[in-house]
């Protein structure tokens, strides 16, 4: 029994001396160190980098206008698999537009929607979760019930209702609809993390030193509660891209001047027997994109969550 007491008394002393001899790596840099050696992380990061380059400057890879339909190359010309990076590489769609060019230009909408919705839900859900977790009591009860209310509406269904309100839908209306309903998961994760961190000794210490609420939240709690939020956010990003494509596929997401893989999948479904390639390429690009983000999320989770190692 005395043995046990001695041990517990030892722990804070150890913690206090820890930072002095050679600076230990923080959770973030430790995770980064671990990540760089994972092939899955490297592959998915390179894929995402390529996608972002395509999204920013699709004209680097093709000189064809993806909206120009040329009826000479007309209706559903078969792909010419030998013609690398040429307009007819992936064939032509129902209106004589180059599928290769459309697949490239379609990346922008997906990447923008994915990143913006993830940022939006993380910030909105993060703030709500932070307040609920930190203040507890009544604030928590009210905010948690509000989260429950939004969580109770299926995301796809709610997004359909909101998007129906826009007569012309752009990338931003899709981002708005998905953010307005998608923040609940982030709020729950953040709330849980904040409640755990709030009870740590360093928060009590900061309070004892007279730090204000804002300072405690931003400087002490936020950095330490961020890891699970980052994990959920990276995995969710792939899901948001898939959801955008599903909405556009249903004809209630993005609209024609915007090029989206979902719209192309929808128009290709009508000619699936005659021209399966018209469905295959946008669907394939979409799947690879979602896969890349989910693999990245998996790798980040393994690196940030030491329990699973």
């Amino acid at each position, binding site marked *: 029994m005395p043995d046990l007491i001695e041990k517990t008394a030892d722990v804070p002393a150890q913690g206090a001396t820890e930072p002095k001899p050679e600076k230990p790596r923080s959770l973030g840099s430790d995770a980064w160190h671990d990540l760089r050696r994972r092939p899955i992380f490297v592959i998915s990061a390179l894929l995402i980098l390529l996608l972002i380059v395509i999204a920013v400057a699709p004209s680097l890879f093709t000189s064809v206008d993806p909206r120009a339909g040329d009826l000479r190359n007309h209706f559903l010309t078969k792909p010419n698999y030998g013609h690398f990076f040429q307009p007819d590489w992936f064939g032509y769609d129902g209106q004589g537009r180059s599928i290769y060019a459309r697949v490239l230009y379609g990346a922008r909408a997906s990447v923008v929607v994915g990143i913006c919705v993830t940022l939006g839900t993380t910030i909105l859900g993060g703030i709500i979760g932070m307040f609920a977790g930190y203040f507890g009591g009544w604030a928590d009860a009210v905010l948690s*019930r*509000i989260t*429950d*209310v*939004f*969580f*109770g*509406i*299926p*995301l*796809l*269904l*709610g997004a*359909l*209702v*909101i998007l*129906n*309100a826009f*007569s012309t839908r752009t990338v931003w209306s899709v981002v708005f609809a998905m953010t307005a309903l998608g923040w609940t998961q982030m709020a729950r994760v953040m709330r849980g993390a904040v409640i755990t961190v709030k009870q740590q000794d360093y928060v009590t210490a900061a309070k004892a030193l007279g730090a204000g609420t804002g300072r405690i939240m931003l400087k002490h709690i936020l950095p330490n509660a961020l890891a699970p939020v980052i994990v959920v956010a990276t995995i969710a990003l*792939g899901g948001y891209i*898939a959801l955008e*494509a*599903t909405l556009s*596929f*249903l004809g*209630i997401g993005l609209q024609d001047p915007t090029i989206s893989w*979902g719209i192309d*999948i*929808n128009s290709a*479904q009508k000619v*699936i*027997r005659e021209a*399966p390639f018209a*469905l295959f390429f946008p*669907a394939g690009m*979409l*799947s*690879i994109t*979602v*896969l890349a983000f*989910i*693999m990245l999320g*998996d790798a980040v989770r393994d690196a940030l969550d030491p*329990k*699973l190692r």
Partner: protein
Amino acid sequence: MGRFVIRRLLQMIPVFLGTTFLIFFMVHMLPGDPVRAMWGDKAVDPAQLASIRHNLGLDKPWYEQYLTYMGHLFQGDFGTTMGNRKVLDVITEALPVTVRLALLAFVFEIVLGVTIGLFAGLRRGKSFDKGTLILTLLLISIPVPVLGFIFQTVFATQLRWVTPTVQDSMNIGQLVLPALVLGSLSLAYVARLTRTSIVENIRADYIRTAVAKGLPRRKVIGTHLLRNSMIPVVTFLGTDLGALMGGAIVTEGIFNVKGVGNALYHAINLNEGATISGFVVVLVLVYLAASLIVDLLYAVLDPRIRYA
């Protein structure tokens, strides 16, 4: 236990009211006038328009409409569609189809997902485990519309095992393919969750004890390992049943199933506020009931969890 259930039921009331309020508000914000739309391009007598609007209660402010709606709802009256059909009839026609579809998908998820996850977890690091991780990752990445077309092409057009679209929405045999597509994403999640949970628990002390006291392997895995690993899976499954019913829109569209998703899609396009609200009320009730059952299942699975 009884007190816990009552407290949970009471907590559900504000969530139920909030969700119906939110969806009512969202539907009300939709532009376009469903009453005016009944005439199409033809000219309308404003007096006639006003009288129909008055009969439907659409001339009142929206919060008053909400109160009336809720009042009727508690008497089991879901209102009428613009075509003067009872919304309750539309719901009772579509709901059984989607309940079958969702339950079938749910069974696939539980049976296949848990079995695959269990074996992958038991053979951690072996080829079956790696194969499961890769396959589930692929299944998660392929968006549902694409997966639907792949299944439709392979099983219906190429192999001719089933018809490409569903002819009779109440026939369970024909619903198997759509249910597989609908449940595939969650199946992958269930398999992964089960695997992670099994891997975590297999090193626990109680498993060592169970093995040490000479229990047969089946019993160690069945009653000790699997039961204790089910909590995260059950949590996921609880929120998933509602999501399956709401997410059936895409699958029902591809396979021509006349269920909730189909009816909702038309209702949203036609701006049928009462129908949309009615279906959402039902979906929210399913979600609330499922989350209550999940909480009660925790206590069954883990005897350490007790509700006072």
